[in-house]
């Protein structure tokens, strides 16, 4: 659904700009026209401009809502369950700081990494692969 966001917003903005222009032209024309010098121009916009503006507003609004990004669950167990179920794919945004379970670092213990053992294991793993 998110891909609809930009096109909808763009189309809405174009329609809104058109509505704005029409309203402006209308007031300019009616204030200079000689036929109705007495009618108050401010209250009598044509119906189609009303419809155009409101439709454009709803369109842009819809576009912005669709593009606003998914909210995250706030209950700890739902949030954690989502991470467990979906893994890295679930977090969605690429710009997020943490991926997967943020407490995995405590079990991985990068500060105490034993690089030589890892390397030896890796060599063994490669020999097994061959």
């Amino acid at each position, binding site marked *: 659904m998110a891909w609809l966001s930009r096109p909808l917003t763009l189309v809405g903005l174009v329609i809104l700009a058109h509505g704005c222009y029409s309203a402006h032209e209308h007031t300019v024309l009616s204030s200079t026209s000689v036929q109705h010098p007495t009618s108050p121009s401010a209250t009598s916009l044509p119906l189609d401009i009303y419809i155009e503006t409101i439709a454009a507003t709803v369109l842009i609004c819809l576009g912005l809502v669709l593009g606003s990004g998914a909210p995250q669950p706030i209950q700890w167990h739902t949030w954690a369950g989502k991470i467990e179920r*979906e893994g890295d794919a*679930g977090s969605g945004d690429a710009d997020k700081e943490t991926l997967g379970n943020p407490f995995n670092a405590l079990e991985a213990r990068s500060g105490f990494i034993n690089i030589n053992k890892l390397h030896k294991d890796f060599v063994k793993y490669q020999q097994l692969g061959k």
Partner: protein
Amino acid sequence: MPSLLLRPHASLSHAEALQVAQQAPEILRKNPASYSASPLFSLFSPPESSNTWTIYENLLLACLRTGDNTTARQCLERLVVRFGGSDERIEALKGLVKEAEATNDGELEKVLKEYEEILAKDNTNVPIAKRRIALLRAMGKTAESIEALVQFLDFSSTDAEAWMELADLYLSQGLYAQAIYAQEEALTIAPNAWNLHARLGEVLLMAAESGSEGNPQNYLAESLKRFCRSIELSDDYLRGYYGLKRVTDKLLAANSKGKKPSESDEFTLPETSTIEKLNQAATKKLGDIVRKYDAKDPLWQGYDAGEVAAARTYLSESSQKVLR
């Protein structure tokens, strides 16, 4: 795939580490060797984020793991250019590279000496202190390593990572009571870490199975509670449910043998009917998880393939037992 690059390196499998290491030359080529503070240059170079440096660090570790020391050196150089050679974390990484390049115990001893010199000047240098402990452990001096770690925890008692390392060290020595204590300390620092709850449950289960010290029933009861807490904190937590099933199976087997749990126990076991219910819930959930994972449901693919396989075999084993 950037997510592999950002995960803590030690949690990667060998295949994943290889994948990361193979990306290293390309990432090094794509990113500039140094980031200029001038706004004019920053217009033309890729943006610098905190992730950039996490990625470099993980690349460094992956290259060392796969034995590509020259690329590792390049990553280290970038980090040195950015943060300076005397930064605590960079010093630790430098030491790590030296450790990886050392070919015999004599050279490792030399690296250890260097660590000790740095610590003599500034004994609050956390990354170096951790490297020293890790190196002692790697060289097989477990007792010294435990001693150093206990000292380290005296002044830095809120370091959950260090408590977990201590628990692991004790566990490798078979000292379950101490391992459990260290693990509980880590949990007081991170009370909502569901994987630590499950890990403590596993250690307690191991302690009960070894049966060397204390009352195994107590360990089982405590383990049951830990697994329950871990799944209370995280829906659909495969590891938690797996542990829960194992513990309840054990407890039910013990009960059916007619061993009465002594009343004076510190940890009172719940009713047998409750344990049975928990067991059934765990079986059902494990079945669900395995089925959904196998059905390639896109929302259920976060599990580790090995863990799912273990759950599958355990489930089929226990269902065979029921059939008999």
